């Protein structure tokens, strides 16, 4: 009984994977799966149509609608330099991570006062903006510092 059940589950699993992997069309050699086509159709036809029910002309029209998004990704992969990709991904990850770090108003205020004091000590003639004006950027800066400190603690740096 157990064996039979396992076999059925495995067959169902393979069938699902196969269905997901069926290619509906290719755009400049990039594959668009039936699942992707159906997902787009669901939005366009509000769930009324499926890929297999479309005529060849309708299928072509649908793929033409999906194609730009696929081509943009292909172009981004080809045309962006590694440095640009790294910078973009690092920036987004940093922003995402910083958003999860809470910095209290008190901590931000303390940092602000410290900066103000340092500015005065340096006899800086520039006008220091009010705390409320710079609160958010100070909080972001503190969160970034916290994140980097945490990362650097885990890092393995070896001099040769």
């Amino acid at each position: 009984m157990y064996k039979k059940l396992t076999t059925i589950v495995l067959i169902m699993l393979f069938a699902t994977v196969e269905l997901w992997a069926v290619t509906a069309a290719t755009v400049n050699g990039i594959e668009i799966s039936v699942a992707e086509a159906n997902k787009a159709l669901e939005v366009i036809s509000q769930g009324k149509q499926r890929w297999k029910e479309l005529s060849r002309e309708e299928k072509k029209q649908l793929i033409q609608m999906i194609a730009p998004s696929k081509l943009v990704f292909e172009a981004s992969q080809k045309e962006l330099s590694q440095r640009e990709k790294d910078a973009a991904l690092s920036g987004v990850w940093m922003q995402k991570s910083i958003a999860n770090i809470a910095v209290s108003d008190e901590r931000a205020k303390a940092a602000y006062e410290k900066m103000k004091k340092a500015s005065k000590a340096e006899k800086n003639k520039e006008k220091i903006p009010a705390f409320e004006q710079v609160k958010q950027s100070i909080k972001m800066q503190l969160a970034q510092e916290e994140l980097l400190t945490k990362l650097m603690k885990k890092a393995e740096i070896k001099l040769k």
Partner: protein
Amino acid sequence: MQTVLKNKYKTYGNRFRKKHMKTSIFSVGLILLQIHTCLVADALKDTLTNLLDEKNSVDMVSLDNLSITGKSGSRVHFKKRSANTVIATVKGHKIRKKEADTFLKEVTKGKVNDFDRLSEKQRRQVIKELVKIYELKHRKSRPPTAVVATVNGVDISKKEADSFLSRVTAGKVKDFDKLDKKQQKLLITDLAKPIIVKQEAYKQLTKKEKEGVLRQVWLEKQKSSIEVSSDEMLALYEEKKTQSLAINLNAVIPPYLSIGKQLKNEIIEKKITQKLMKDVEIEILDDHNQSKSTRHTPAIQESSSVKKEK
């Protein structure tokens, strides 16, 4: 009458004396205040001078017990030697007094320029620093391809370290191998930050997120390079206006200037799509897996477009 006059003069005399006394007290007060101010100012000046001296002596050589201003502290008795006197030798290289004097002058900002005025302890410290400088100066630099450090298993070449060093020192120091170990470690720690952030980004962002970010960056890059003329914007505005009025004669048409940005973005997106879809090859795979190739032709061809070589 005489008594009256006498009394009157007495009153005037008292008044004068009182007035004079008031002036005297005021003058004495002013003088005292001035003396006090001078004393306070002197004390303040001394404090500031001491503070400055303390600050200046922190760098590399401790100048404790050394009287710079000659006002306080115990004076060190010294015997002045000639500038060419050898004060130390490193691997056969002679360090002369003039080198120590120059070094001292530099770190004390000109306040101390005679090595012989230092105490034994301070002299040792200066020599130690000079030996360090000599060794760093004569240390052989590694080739640019040499790995100078690893950050989470990622190799950092000397070229990368040199370039970073040059950037942070505004071109003043360019050779990583001329730094001491502590400075090297500090520099590599700074250099490591973006590397570690990048590693985390690739590790933690999902495939979908990564694709989305790269799409966005590519689109932004395209947008900044595409130019839109006011004629194009006006043409699109007129087209939209005609369309709206065709559906509803009473439709409210917003003024051209209020939707300028929107029109521009629409034209840019259209141009990007046209560029992407130019000569694109679409292949529809039917149910029986028979494929038929179609070539998509965009509605409006760009006059200056050149077929991309494959």
